[in-house]
């Protein structure tokens, strides 16, 4: 089925030119009491950018998304969507920003179709278009056979999909998704990835907050790692994955059998840090230099460590994230 028309009467400023800046975040700060949830963040995203937002719980990801959506008042700074400032009294930007919370709000007593009808009315879509859009998006989120069922009878994953359909109904240019895959089953996650890629390729800006780093690796164009309200690292996926991969990296060493007192043994080896032992598996940080790595392997064997395998960890988001040393925020 072809995607429904975005606007019944397209306005010149509604259709952004390719690769134009759609989202601009300028010195945005959100503070609650003394806690700075989002600390003076600035970045820009262009059409076709898909930013994956990662970080521990309490890092400020949700607050940032809510601030961009206009749901959270900012203490200072400003957000612009397609050049228009995000303010509670600016209704124009709301047509172009979609936001799905980690647990989307719904009217449980309504059927899926009724709920989406309500959303269509709320966005002022022409009546004849509402039904076609509902059919289209229900098919996209694999709920076309649930249209007539009351939302209260559906599972968490299905409600999550309704939330995504609700966000995409008005066909926004900037799409903000907070933990969208949390309630989805494995098949749903695969389909969801395809949907995100399709939206990205249509030239939309997406920000997806997720803990599932392997997924983000596949569909994101950019990654931002957040901690304590700040962006610790931000860049393209490749840049972030490679970042910090200078003179040290993590090695995973498989052991023939578990060895007692291995941590003490390794503490005597110069240059080794971040040792984690898990039965017959060992992770440590050491120089990236191949010659030095070979010397380390030789020394381990010399010290009687029964090494079965020895390999540097492949650069990736998980590695990049762990290398930042971010701990869970209390």
């Amino acid at each position, binding site marked *: 089925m072809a995607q429904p028309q975005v606007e019944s009467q397209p306005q010149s400023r509604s259709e952004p030119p390719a690769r134009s800046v759609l989202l601009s975040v*300028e*010195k945005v*700060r959100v*503070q*609650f*009491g*003394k806690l700075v949830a989002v600390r*003076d963040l600035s970045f820009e995203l262009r059409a076709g950018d898909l930013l994956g937002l990662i970080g521990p719980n309490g890092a400020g990801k949700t607050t940032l998304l809510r601030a961009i*959506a*206009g*749901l959270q*008042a900012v*203490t*200072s*700074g*400003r957000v612009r969507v397609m050049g228009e*400032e995000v303010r*509670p*009294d600016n*209704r*124009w930007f*709301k*047509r172009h*920003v*979609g*936001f799905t*919370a980690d647990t*989307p*709000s*719904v*009217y*449980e*007593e*309504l059927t899926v179709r*009724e709920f989406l*009808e*309500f*959303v269509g*009315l*709320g*966005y*002022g879509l022409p*009546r004849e278009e*509402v*039904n076609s859009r509902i059919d289209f998006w229900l098919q996209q989120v694999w709920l076309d056979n649930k249209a007539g069922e009351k939302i209260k009878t559906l599972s968490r994953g299905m409600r999550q999909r309704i939330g995504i359909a*609700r966000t995409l109904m008005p066909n926004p240019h900037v799409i903000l998704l907070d933990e969208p895959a949390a309630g989805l089953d494995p098949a749903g996650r695969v389909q969801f990835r395809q949907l995100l890629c399709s939206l990205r390729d249509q030239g939309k800006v997406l920000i997806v907050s997720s803990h599932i780093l392997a997924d983000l690796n596949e569909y994101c164009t950019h990654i931002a790692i957040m901690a304590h309200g700040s962006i610790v690292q931000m860049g393209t996926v490749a840049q972030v994955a490679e970042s910090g991969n200078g003179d040290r990296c993590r090695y995973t060493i498989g052991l023939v059998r578990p060895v007692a007192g291995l941590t003490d043994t390794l503490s005597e080896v110069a240059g080794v840090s971040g040792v984690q032992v898990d039965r017959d598996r060992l992770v440590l940080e050491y120089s990236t230099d191949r010659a030095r790595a070979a010397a380390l392997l030789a020394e381990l064997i010399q010290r009687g460590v029964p090494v079965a395998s020895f390999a540097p960890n492949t650069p990736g988001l998980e590695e990049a994230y762990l290398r930042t040393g971010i701990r869970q925020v209390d």
Partner: protein
Amino acid sequence: MSDSPLSLNSIAWVHYRLRGGMRSVILQSGGFLVIVGGLIIAAVRGDPKDARSILYGWLISLLAIQVGILILYGGSAVRNAVRRDFQTGMIASHRLMPISPSHAVAGYVLGACPQPLAVAGTNLLIGLLIAGPARVNPADWLAANGLLLLFAVCSWVVVVCASLISAKSAGVVLVALVLIFMSGLLTLVPAFTVVCSPLVGSNIFGIVMRGAAWSDVLHLSVIAQLVATTLFFLAAARKYRRDDVPAASPRLGLIIVAYYVAVTLIGIHYWPSLQPVISTITGPLGPLQALASLMLGILVAFLPVGAAAWREEEYRRRRLLDDPALGRRPSNSVELALKLAFLLALIPAIALAEPSLTRNGFTLACLAATLVPLAYLFRLTYRVRATAGLFVGLWIAAVWILPWIVSFGVLVAYGIDDTLELPVAWQRAEAIASFSPIGALISIWTSGDQRHLPGLIFQIIVALLMAVLYHTRRSGKGELYVPVAGSK
């Protein structure tokens, strides 16, 4: 999708659906028709000779039931609609949509009320059918219902506004309305009587029972209700748009105070034709009403003063953070407090036709000395708290009520001190009470001498001290604290 007119407003449409839609409209109004119609038929058949008086009694009862349907049933339906959206988190979903705040507020009223309106419509029709046999002019029945509907719409908007401010406050509003009706407050504060006159004073029951013509005051009451509805509608829309700001902006608050002053003056002027039947206080009420209204007016003035102080503090925080979206400097809360003092001083000056510059000057000074320190108190409070209710309450207890307690103590001491004469004790008590703004205002307008001067000077000193305290406690960026609701 339904093609009903409600589909023009998505919030109205969804709440109408959630309340059962057309099915519940038919069920409720049909059920009402069967029960009430059956009871009326049974009553008339039971005593056919006295049918006229039975139907007349039923007509008055139907009017009372109509009050219940429109005010209580309608009000609670509106409250529940807003509360449901808060509880389900759908209010945030609505705020994401490009719906104008006024559209949303209207949606809550329109979506929640079709069922109450359908039952009320059935009630209206039953009344229309029995009005003729009960020898009541059907036009009077329609006029009374029309007035009641207007008042009900006003009350629904007030309930939406209160519900958006806080889920609990809508219930408080309903309780407050009942208490106002039951207490003598209607007599002391004529502004209430003007706005509530379809139910008290020149009321709808009089129109049905006596065929009372529309008085001037009823016309003024209708205008006052329309203005009140507009003001509360604007406040509700503002609160819907952004829930972390006070409902009334400084400008809207100033308009609300001006409205209150105007309605108070109308109420005092038209009191003879407004006076509620249940009023127990007799005699010349002008001075009492003017002073009581003035004191309540000071409380109403807290709204704009607090809102202006909130904006100033937000601006201060943004400036400290070098905010790129700083915007214009907001209006000064102290200047606004002075404007409000002038506005409120008009109540006794006009209502009591008092040309004395001394009295009016003292009144103005007292009001300024009351509102200016409050502006500073609000600003200091908003540095550490999102809401100012606690600190303002403590301030009122200390500055307004404490002098009265001491004053009362002096009078008690008179009873156990034989050396003290009553006039002396009374003078001392009055002088001490004038350290409170209430006591000072009473003293200014009831006694001929200048006994209130020490108290007034004390209040001015307190105002200056608050100014000094505020200006010496300017915090830097390092101390920046952003209060949030429920914190600290």
